[in-house]
């Protein structure tokens, strides 16, 4: 059992634990925090796989920007403990059961099926950030440009929906 493996399992446990706590936390703010835990753990895993850039972005954009946004909104709406209603019959036991079934199935299939990808991964000769930039700005320039519009739309949406006063 090598060190990396131990680290992996620790991080994995952290991620899963965070996810679980996201589920079981009553207060959204706690959920948010547990989500951040997950993200950090994932960042760790990225590092473990040698994808530094992604890991960085994960921390900065996700853990930083997005989650902050979440927390901010939670505060803004000062959301309290979520009330525990059960209007949906379906979303009760059967729903959870089905979800478990799906998860189990997907996980099982993947576990059996990842033979197509190489069994082990070796760090080191992982793509450098240069290659990344090449990729983004040459091969994927089109979607990249599109994402700019996407963000534009997001901004627009935020303005349209969240602004308070309706124009004359």
């Amino acid at each position, binding site marked *: 059992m090598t060190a990396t493996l131990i680290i992996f399992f620790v991080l994995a446990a952290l991620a899963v634990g965070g996810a679980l706590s996201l589920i079981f936390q009553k207060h959204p703010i706690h959920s948010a925090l547990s989500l951040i835990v997950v993200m950090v753990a994932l960042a760790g895993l990225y590092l473990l796989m040698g994808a530094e850039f992604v890991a960085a972005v994960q921390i900065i954009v996700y853990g930083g920007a997005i989650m902050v946004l979440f927390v901010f909104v939670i505060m803004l709406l000062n959301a309290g403990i979520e009330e525990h209603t059960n209007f949906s019959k*379906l979303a009760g036991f059967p729903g959870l059961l089905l*979800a478990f079934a799906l998860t189990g*199935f997907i996980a099982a299939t993947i576990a059996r099926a990842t033979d197509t990808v190489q069994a082990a991964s070796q760090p080191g000769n992982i793509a450098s950030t240069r290659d990344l930039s090449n990729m983004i700005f040459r091969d994927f320039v089109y979607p990249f440009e599109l994402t700019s519009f996407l963000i534009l739309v997001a901004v627009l949406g935020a303005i349209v929906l969240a602004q308070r006063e309706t124009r004359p």
Partner: protein
Amino acid sequence: MPILEHLWIIPLLPLLGATVNGLLGRTWPNKIINSVAIGATGLSFLAALEAVREFFLLSSEQIPWVKQYFSWIEAGNFRAGFDLQVDQLTLVMLLVVTGVGWLIHIYSTGYMAHEGGYYRFFAYLNLFMFFMLILVLAANYVLLFVGWEGVGLASYLLIGFYFLRKSAADAGKKAFIVNRIGDFGFMLGMFLLFRTFGTLDFVKLFDKATPLSAEALGHLGTLTVACLLLFMGAAGKSAQIPLYVWLPDAMEGPTPVSALIHAATMVTAGVYVVARSHVLFMHAPTAMLVVAVVGCATALFAATIGLVQTDIKKVLAYSTVSQLGYMFLACGVGAFSAGVFHLMTHAFFKALLFLAAGSVIHAMGGEQDMLRMGGLSKKIKWTYVTMLTGTLAIAGIPPLAGFFSKDSILLNAYLSENSGPNVGHILYAAGLFTALLTSFYMFRLIFLIFFGKERYDEHHVHVHESPKSMLIPLAILAVLSIVGGWLAAPAFWGKSDYFAKFLEPVFAAPGGSEAGTAEAVAHALETPLAIIAVLTALAGLLAAYWLYVKQPSKSDSLAKSFRGVYQTLLHKYYVDEFYSAVVVRPLLWLSTNVFWKTVDVSIIDGAVNGIAEGITVVGDGTRRAQSGNTRSYAVWVVVGAIVIVAVIFWPHVRPVLGVAR
């Protein structure tokens, strides 16, 4: 030969009369209507006479004389033409129909003078003449069927002439429907004949049928079946058991109608058809036997009912049924000419009787119940005399017409070898007994009406003799019913019977039984049988005299002592009640409650609406799934995910009927 070339003139004239009167007569005065109607029939009577004259100029191979005018129905190898045919049989019918018909038209002008819907009456009457003439002139079964149905229609209209009276309307309907039942058989008969011979033209068909060998007795061959089916039609039209029920009710119509349609002409159409199809019948002894038996039974049966009826027209009606039975008996025993002969004489005297009865009713101001008459003999002498003549004729008192015709029927019945001699003897006996009954109830009628004391109150009823227009036809008919039979008279002094001779080319063609065999044996039996017949008739007369003139009280006491029998006869053996209980009501009940209410509404429509309902319910269920709750929706998505994954990964959950190659 103007007329024979243009036979269509004969039926067309009455049709014209009918059309003119029917469409325009509404506003016309009676005179014009009379002249149109009588003119039309009279002319066609003259035309018929002319036809007879020309007919005698024809050479024998030109007979039967067939004219094809235009083809009426054509399909595949089937053709029904508007073809008219004349042979001896036709001529007889032609003369009877036009002649008697004409007389009755004349009579009606007097009788109906004060009725509403005068033009309607004559239009119908002419229409009837038209169809009747089509019937007798037709050269194929289909055209004959036209006349057949047509006269049915005319009788429907005329019976229902007083359509305000429910009874009249009912009677008309009944007549038509019962006839339809007969027609059902008649049509099937035609179909079978066409299937067998590939044609329905008389000449061709009979030519093909003649060489065939007769079918053994009791064996249901094609011909037998066909004959029986035809006879079913005949029985309907000619009011034989079991379809006779409509005729008595038909008396709801005006009396001249009863005389013309329900005594003289239409009801004899059945006999005519059987006589016309004799070739087929000769090949089907079984059918013959059935005809004979049914005819005989009807004769007897109707006579018994006639004994106790008190309505003057009802009595005559049952006697008509009974006499028709005679005619069928004759045909059944192969004595077609005798049958037709009786048909003719019967036409004379029965028309006479009806018209006389009409005159009586006219005199009594519409009274029909004999129990409310009596002692009229002096008040309406002419009517009395003529009616008496008719009675004597029908009772079979020589030398009146009825005697000869009935006599030859009985003779032939006695001689008939058809199915063993004793059958013939039984038929003879029954016929004889019927003769007895006949003379009894006929004289009962005479005595009740004309003898004894008046059983009506003078103040209301002013008995008066009918006008000339009514009496002259009576007189003529009286004469006819005296001399009408003499055609057959020579048979008695060894010579042959002219009437039979005249018809021989028609009937003797397929070597009919009567010509050869009868002649010889006949002379031996002729006289004794005749004497017996006369005696029976007299017996009936005396019985009636004793019961209704000597001591009238006796009749009632008799009725009382035989209450059961009397009631049964009075209610005509409860046949109508029986029919309505067994056929009519069940049918209506079935149609209403089973077919309509259950099958149609409940089952079929129920199923249709049920499906709709079901789908709606399911639809409501589907809507409920749309709970509006996002979490449930998420679960639905998951469900979908699982469905897809399952279908893709596990082949055995795939729908079975997926692909139908």
